[in-house]
Structure formats: C-alpha cells, structure tokens
C-alpha cells in the first residue's frame, strides 16, 4: 500500500542539483532537472561511504542513464532504478515523484 505525500514546494528544489527531504523518518534526495521537468527521488544514504550525502552529489547522465555521483567516493547511482553502476549488487531505494500544483509529492511504500 502506498500513498502520495507532499514533501515540499517546487521552489524548494535546486535546478540541476539536489536537496534532501525527511519523509516518515526516511532521508530522501530529490534531484530536479527543469529542462525535462523531471524530479527523481532516491535514498540520501550512500551505502559505500556510509553517510547521508547523496543529495549533495553532482547529477548528469552516463550512457543515457540519469545518475548521481556520490560526493564521497564518486560511485554512480542510476536515478531511475537505484542501481550502482560500479557494483550492481548495490541498489538504493527509489520512489515515484509527481508535481501537483507546484507541490512535490512522493509515494513511499508503507
């Protein structure tokens, strides 16, 4: 069962960059690509560096996949699937996002 939760305003996001929101005790990184009008939601916890820092990584694309590079040791995580490009055994939780009336909403599995 999942429900949409409003987490912040669109204006709280940083274009082509990341911010972090707290949702039901979870730290979630939101990345906003205004040209595609897309927001990605992925866990803020970097399991390799063991710190809550992914929202502060640089985003971009590698071979067409949207990714964030960890600011600690630079591993890439696919923003759609959560899979780590350097170690496919590692997958981060990702969450559906939508924008409703300027409000960013995330669906978190309960």
């Amino acid at each position: 069962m999942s429900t949409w939760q409003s987490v912040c305003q669109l204006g709280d996001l940083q274009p082509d960059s990341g911010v972090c929101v707290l949702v039901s005790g979870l730290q979630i990184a939101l990345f906003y690509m205004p040209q595609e009008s897309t927001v990605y939601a992925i866990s803020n916890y970097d399991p390799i560096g063991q710190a809550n820092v992914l929202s502060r990584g640089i985003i971009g694309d590698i071979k067409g996949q949207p990714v964030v590079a960890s600011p600690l040791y630079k591993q890439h995580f696919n923003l759609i699937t959560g899979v780590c490009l350097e170690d496919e055994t590692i997958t981060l939780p990702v969450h559906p996002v939508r924008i409703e009336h300027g409000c960013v909403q995330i669906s978190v599995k309960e």
Partner: protein
Amino acid sequence: MSIKKTLVVIGNGMVGQHFLVNLVNNPIKEDYNIITFCEEPRAAYDRVHLSAFFSGKTAEDLSLVEPGFFEQHGITIYMGDKAAKICRDSKTVTSEKGHSIRYDKLVLATGSFPFVPPVPGHDRAQCLVYRTIEDLEAMQAAAKTGKVGVVVGGGLLGLEAANALKDLGLQTHVVEFAPRLMAVQLDDAGGAMLRTKIEALGVVVHTGKNTSLITDGEQCVNKMCFADGEELETDIVLFSAGIRPRDDIARDCALEVGPRGGIVINNQCQTSDPNIYAIGECALWNGMIYGLVAPGYAMARTVVADLAGNEASFTGADMSTKLKLMGVDVASIGDAHAKTPGALVYTYQNGDTAVYKRLVVSQDKKQLLGAVLVGDASGYGTLLQYCLNGIQLPENPDALILPSRSDESVGLGPDALPVSAQICSCYDVTKGEICKAIDAGCTSLDGLKSETKAATGCGGCAALLKSVLNSELAKQGYEVNTDLCEHFAYTRQDLYTLIRVEQIKTFADLLARYGKGKGCEICKPTVGSILASCWNDYILKTEHTPLQDTNDTYLANMQKDGTYSIVPRIAGGEISPDMLIALGQVGKKYKLYTKITGGQRVDLFGARVDQLPPIWKELIDAGFESGHAYGKSLRTVKSCVGSTWCRYGVDDSVGLAIELENRYKGLRSPHKIKFAVSGCTRECAEAQGKDVGIIATENGWNLYVCGNGGMKPRHADLFATGLDKATLIQYIDRFLSFYVRSADRLQRTSVWMENMEGGLDYLKSVVIEDKLGLCEQLEQQMQTVIDTYQCEWKTTIEDESKLKRFRHFVNSEQTDDNVVFVEERGQIRPADEQERKHFKLVEVA
C-alpha cells in the same frame, strides 16, 4: 648444494653500478657472492649531469642507486675503500683499508681520471679538476673568494665545467688548444657558431692557446701565461682537457695495457686474464677508449651476458651525442668530419638565429654518414635513426636540415624504423622492445619509461619514444582518446580555448554548442573551473552551482561522515593573537575539532551543513575570509619567519608570502596550487616541495616551480635566479596563467611540466623569453582574476536566497541523525560503527 663463487667489482661509478643492476636482474646472480669496492665516500651518481649540482640538485638527487639496493640484493659494498692490489696467482684483491677478498671473477670498472697537462704551476692553489662531487665542493669553496674562473679545455666536459663556473657567478673563460671548440665532434663552422652562442652568454673563449706556465697573479690568485706571450689572470683554473684511463691496478698485476694506457679487452670485455673483465673508461677495445656512458653500459651488459654463458660481444659503439651546453643544443652524429671517401656535404647556416647544420651523405646520396647540429638539435633523433639503421635518404637529403616552412613534415615517422632500431642508446632499448611493452598493456609514456627504462638516461629520445607510442597505439586500433568524457569530444585545453575565444559564460551554452547529453561529475566541475578561471564569476550563481563539486557547493570540505571542515585564510601563516582567539572562540562555541594544517592554517572539523553560514558570519565579523581550501585553487603561501626576526634571514619572506597569497587567492586552476617562501637557503618553508617556491638570496629571489608533496613527491626545479620582486611576480603571473590554460584536468604543475614536450626549458622559453608571444595576454588574464576577487563566503552570507541550500532537509529543521561524535583527547571525532551501537554517545546539539 653448490658453493657460491665470488665476484668482485672494483669501482662503483656509473658503469660499475649499471653492471650490478644488470647482474642482479639476471638469474646468474644466484651463483655469486657479490662484493664491490667504492673509493669515493658515496655510491654511484650521475656524472653526466654533474653541473646540475650548482643549479640546486644535491648529491642525493644525482644518486643512481635506489635506496636499499645493496642490502636488498645481498651485495657487500666497501665504501670509501680503494682496491689497491690484485694478486692474480692467489686470485685476491686487497684494499687500502686491508680487506682481502678471494675472487673467482673480477670486473674492473675503475673509470678514468682527468688529464692535467704537465704545465709548470698546474698544482698551485685553486687549480682544480672536474670529476667528482668532492671536486665540485672544492670549486664551490674556491668560488666564494674568487671572481674569475678559467676552464682549460673546450671539449664536451670543458664546456659543461664552464657552465658550472658561470652558475657559481664567476667571470668565465674557456681556453682551448685546438683552433675551435669541441674539436672532436664539430667542424670549423659548427665550432664557430657554438663559440658565438657561448660568447653571447658572457663566457670568453680563447682558441689556439697553449698554456706554458701558471704563476702568481696580481689581481687574482693565479696568472696563466700562454705560448704566444699573452696572459690571463684568474682565481680558479679548472682542467678539463680530456680523460685518461685508470689502469694502474691492472699494470701492477701485469695485465696487458695499451701503449697510451687503457686495459686491453676482447669482444667479451675480457682482459688478458680470462677471469678478469674491464668495462667503461678504463677499458681499451680495438685501440679505442670510449669516454661516453652508453658504450660503458653496453660493455657492462656484455659481461653480464658472458657470465651467464650467453653469447654476447661488444663490437664498438656509436659515438653520436646530443647535449645542451649552456643552453645551446649541440649534436654530432657518425662521420661528422666527412672522412669517408666520396662523401658529400650539405650545410645550412642561419646567422640570425645562430643555427648551423651539416649533413654528410654517401656518394650515391642514399645513406646518411654523419651530421653536425648546433643551435637547433631537434632533428637529432630522426637523423640518428637514418644513420644507424641505413635507412634510404629522401631524394633531396637537404630537406632534412632545411627549416620546414610548410606543414609538410620531412621527419622520419616511427613507422619507418625497423624493429631493431635502437630508440634509447643509454639503456639500449630497441623499437621492438618498446612495441612489446605496449602490446603487454603499457600505454602511457610514464609507464613505458618505468617498464623499459627508455628515455630515463639522458632523456634525448623522449620525443621519439612518444611518437613510437602514439603510432603503435593508433596502429593497434587504440584510439588515443583524449576526450574529456562522453559529453565532450574535446580536451580540457580545447574547452579552455573555446570558452575564452567564444566568450562562453555558462555550461549550458557550452554543452549546447559543443557537447551532448547532460554532463557528468567529470565535465561539470572541469567546465565550472575553466569558467571561474576565465570570467571569475561568483561560483554559486544559480547557473554555476550545479557544476561544482560538493566542496565548492558548500564552500567547505566534506569529511567521511558528511560533515564539513572550515579553513579560513591565514595569509602567509601570520596571525595576531586576537584573530587566533576569535578562531578559538568559534571552535569552542560550535564544539569543532581543531587541528593545525600543513599549510600554516587552522582547520575546524565537524560542522553540519546548517552550521556553516552562522560560523562564517562570526568568522567574517572577526575579520577572516574564505581560505579556498575546498577548491582546486590557490591554497596557501607558506613562509618561514624571514629576515624580520631570524638571525639568518636574507629577506622578508613573510611579507612576500602575504603579498603573493593576497594576489592569487581565489584563482581557480586545474588542481590545487601551493606556494612557499623561504627567507634564506636554509629553506625552512620547504619551498622546493611546492608548485611555486621562492627562496631569498643575497642576489634577489630564486624561483622554483613544479614541485609537490603528496603521493608522488617531486622536488621543484630552479626556474630563475636573482629576481627583483616585480620580475618575480611577472614570471609567476605568466606561469600560473599558462598552467591554467594548458594543463589537463586534475593535473598538478609537476606532471603538466613533465608531459610538456621540451619540459622545463620549453616552459622557461614561454615564460621568460616569451617564445609564444603570449606573455602580455597571460599577464592580463591574471590581472582580471585579481581585479575580480571576492570572498565567496561574504557574498554567500549576504544573499538570503543562497543560504536556503545550507540545510540538511528542505522540509524539516531536524539534523542528520547519522552524524554522531565521541570524544577523544578532549575533542570530538566521528563515532565508528561499533561505537554507534555500543557506547554512550555525546550528541552535539
């Protein structure tokens, strides 16, 4: 179990050491106990580059022995102990200190001694020779009181010695018996051109002079009297009139020696006693003494092969040489004097640039027999390959020495070389061996150098080595991909030029015009850095923020737990007690871990992202500004206390350090840049380990460049000496701008310079002589950066909209519960995983 035999090597000079290195790399070493005698107080060092001792290199820098070499290979070395006597009957060597060793095989590598003509007065005070580091020290001591120095001998070594005298600040003369300089290698016109060039440097050349007496001088210590009646007053007389083989130990035990000296050897380098070999300058092969290092190395390898039972022979060596004498390129190949019957000669002479080139070609114009190059030796590699490998010459051989005024290249491509072609003559590396290393996966120039040792001797073949590498990689289908990343098919240098020439101000604009995709963590910070170097915008402008690495985005250094450290600027390491107290108060209030950095600053650790703005507000109010410790940018200018306080200080190093740090602060560059300024040659600021190092001397500032500490430490190179402050700053402006413009991403100045074709000399020609005509532009670019400096933290805390980003959550005031500290030695540190679970935590509010 077989009992080991004993191998004794007499002499640990360049050739003796080369022999040992080759021996220990051969399985035959297992058969021998190896013992070597070294007369000098230190093991083998680079005599070829001896004059580097006066431009800042130390005896350690010149050493050819890797630390621990003798211990690691179980070699016994008797240092400072001269082998005095060989008894062939009992097969023993006895040393001056009384060691007596029984040998099975003996290798003589006793080298040579400088020939001192038996002129009356040759043994007077300050009549010196140029051979060992002790000789150099004697020269240094003599130069302290003297003003004038004369070198007797205008050959290779003599000119090298003259360079040393000149570096010591003496008025320098060269006296040569022959009618021209470098009589062995050069013809008359080549010698004359060399003379012009050397005299332009302030060295006085006297040719056709026969010294008849050295006696008391009137103004100087000595006076030289010549056969033609002329006289020359001088403080130092330096004999460099050739070498003589040191064969006395061989004579004493009745080994065969040549009529004019030299231990006679056969093609296996065996002397008249088959158990005794001789190699290097003490050996006489086919009536020849080889006074160059490469033939000595070839003999050393021959003996190792012979010991191992492999077929090997030394059958003479090519005497071609290329070197830089006092900054003048000189090269001589093969039959430079056109002694071959029927030989044809082509000559090119340019009086304006003082270049002289001569080709000696066979009668049928098909083979190159020899060549002479003065003033420009860039064609040496190609010509040598033509000559050594008998490659057929192009239809018009003179094209090889005429300046190419079109893009058409007349050089010999690496593909034209046979696999047997010797690329590196110092280490005898063939093209075949290089290709083999490339096949085995060695695809960088550095890797190739350490794998094959090619280009690590005199370095003369570096350009050729690089072209072989590139050509082989291209042939194997490896595209030599220099693209920055998948988004830009350009190098960093290309992007720099595009951004500057087309006045591109944003990443989006550059990507739209020259890139594809969205970018990544490689190209974004690179472009962000270039934009900052060129236009020096505030880096957290909305369009620039996404380009920055996390450290730049938050203007602080991220640590392992996601907290940040803060380093305010303390220019030159000078700080008042009040400022220090202010810093301490901030550290205490926010409970930060504090540590002194290597760059004479204070680092405050453990700040959460939301604490950064209030901390900086307090620091700025106290008078601090950003230290840019988070950026690839100028970090610190370290200094010693200098002449203001120090008893030994020669100049005000702190004052200069502060001025330089304030001048270049905020400069974004391909990698971090560190400076240091020392107030005297005691060098307490360790300036020679920095990208830019400055040392005060009595004559002005000495500038060193391209050093660094870190994973691969590198000693900086002496770049210019005796500078006044204005010139010093001008050179640094140009140097830094040129680095920012042409280095690769994340390439420090050392690697940048080492990869530059022409290396340090080229860099000097660009920065000092303005070879590229760029200097004005480089200075202007630096001035723009200086004029647009801003403290990024001041700008940030004054802008509400920028502060929004300094929160852990955009939707909550909570902080990151994963950040926990424990106490250690009275300060905080991040808790480890175990501690999080089991220990009582000290949460920092």
